[in-house]
């Protein structure tokens, strides 16, 4: 179990939510959630289905605008900012229901992750000379590194629509990494994966955190994974935060057991 260093705990947070409220036509999806994510931290959010975890991600990435509360990323308020601007600031995510571009190849999907880092315009694209050509080659190299890192080489030029589920999830992870994120949001990264693939993904997540030093927020129902990997865990139920703490603290919290874990307390 890797504890957080004192230094990390006191450094400026990468992202901070303060008393966020979000409701849809009568449904309170998020109800007064506050938390902050510190550099290099792997922060997990768990909670029953419909608790508002994905909604929190959507608030962070600008898809939903909360009715109340503040949202900061890299020290700036991002409330009301369009998703593409927030993404450009360095927030990358994966999606609960895979959201890849099916018709495109793995490489093209990853290249799309690099969209913001490629700068040539459409006029140069027509002629395909100079900057356009140079940048394409350059960024292609960066993408190949991710392909190697995530062991995607054998699928690199296949349209992602035909890949096995587990591989698609990995491509999505790669696409997020291609954005060179300053914060990575993972929404149920191992849902629907078998044991073997779950173990692979766990390894990748740790590597990302350790080698690339990217802070991560992860939503996941696989308690084994959460408890093994997370530095801190936030538990939400009906949009309301129940407890934030280390996996051990959280696991023993009676409300958490009752609302979320049921009898199957993590091993």
């Amino acid at each position, binding site marked *: 179990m890797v504890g957080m260093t004192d230094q990390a705990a006191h450094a400026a947070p990468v992202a901070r939510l303060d008393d966020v409220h979000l409701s849809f036509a009568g449904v309170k999806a998020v109800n007064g959630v506050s938390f902050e994510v510190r550099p290099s931290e792997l922060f997990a959010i768990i909670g029953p289905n419909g608790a508002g975890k*994905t909604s929190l991600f*959507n608030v962070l990435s600008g*898809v939903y605008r909360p009715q109340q509360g503040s949202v900061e990323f890299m020290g700036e308020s991002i409330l009301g900012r369009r998703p593409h601007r927030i993404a450009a600031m360095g927030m990358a995510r994966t*999606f*609960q*229901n895979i*959201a890849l571009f099916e018709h495109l190849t793995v490489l093209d999907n990853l290249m799309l992750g690099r969209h913001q880092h490629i700068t040539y315009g459409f006029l140069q694209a027509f002629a395909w000379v100079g900057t356009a050509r140079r940048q394409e080659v350059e960024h292609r190299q960066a993408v190949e590194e991710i392909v190697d890192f995530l062991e995607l080489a054998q699928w690199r030029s296949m349209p992602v629509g035909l890949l096995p589920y587990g591989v698609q999830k990995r491509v999505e992870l790669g696409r997020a990494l291609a954005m060179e994120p300053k914060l990575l949001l993972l929404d149920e990264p191992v849902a629907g994966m078998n044991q073997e693939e779950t173990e692979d993904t766990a390894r990748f997540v740790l590597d990302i955190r350790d080698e690339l030093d990217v802070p991560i927020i992860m939503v996941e129902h696989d308690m084994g994974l959460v408890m093994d990997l997370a530095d801190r865990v936030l538990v939400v139920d009906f949009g309301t935060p129940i407890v934030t703490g280390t996996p051990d603290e959280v696991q023993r919290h009676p409300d958490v057991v009752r609302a979320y874990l049921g009898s199957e307390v993590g091993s």
Partner: protein
Amino acid sequence: MTQFLEVVLRGLGSGSIYALLALGFVIIYKSTGVISFAQPAMMLTGATITSYVGPALGVMLFTGFSFFVSVAVAALLTAVLALVIERGAIRPMVGRPAFVVAIITIGIDIVVRVVTSGFIGLGARNIPNPWGLERVELAGLRVQERHLVSLATLALVVAVLFWFYRYTRHGLAMRAAAFDQEAALTQGVSVGSVFALSWAMAGALAAVAGSLLAISAGVDRQIWIVALVALPAIILGGLDSLEGAVVGGLAVGVVEALVGTYQRDYAPWLGDNFAVVSPYVLMLLVLLAKPYGIFGTPEVRRV
């Protein structure tokens, strides 16, 4: 004021025909997710059939009665034609992109229209009916009888459709089939029958609309163009909404009549014939405020 009200009534009259056409489009859209560009041809064919059946009956029955009987026969035959087309050219396309199917319907439209035009001949074919251009006085307003007939027909059709969608299981099944054919199949919904049923209903409606339209000046080769006016009507009402089709159709009729009557006096700079494009302008204005039309279901978008 009287004139204004008379214009509005006239607009409602032609609007009720647009509404019937719009209902046909919406029914097909609601259950298959496709806009059928073959509807104009269905309308032309339906009206043509009425123009053949009507005179055949005319000698035997009162004109008012024989009109409705001939329209019913035409609706039935057009529904059968629609079924044949659905079976032959639409059913095999289940699961294919909606726009490919839409282009197929355009091809069908061409074929059916050319064949039907052959039966229309060069001039216009008359549909025997007792109303013609006669008018009645209603509360001091002069209204054409044919417009009252159209409105009454619309009311009847709306009542039947409301019942159908509300109280039979087919209504929901049709919507389900449009959203996700595979999932609908696993519910035990026969997607094939849903397709067939919706095409038949739309065909019958087009036949009714075409026959009503032809009361005033008969069936000629070009009346199919009127069916296109239903397109802005369904969009401004909401593509998948029956209420929307009715409201949209009537709104388009009224706006067209008002613009036709007053625009020359108040806004001549819009050019002669602005009335013809006014439905589209109305549609644009509505969409600026409501991107899914007045009653349309917004597409569910989430990640």
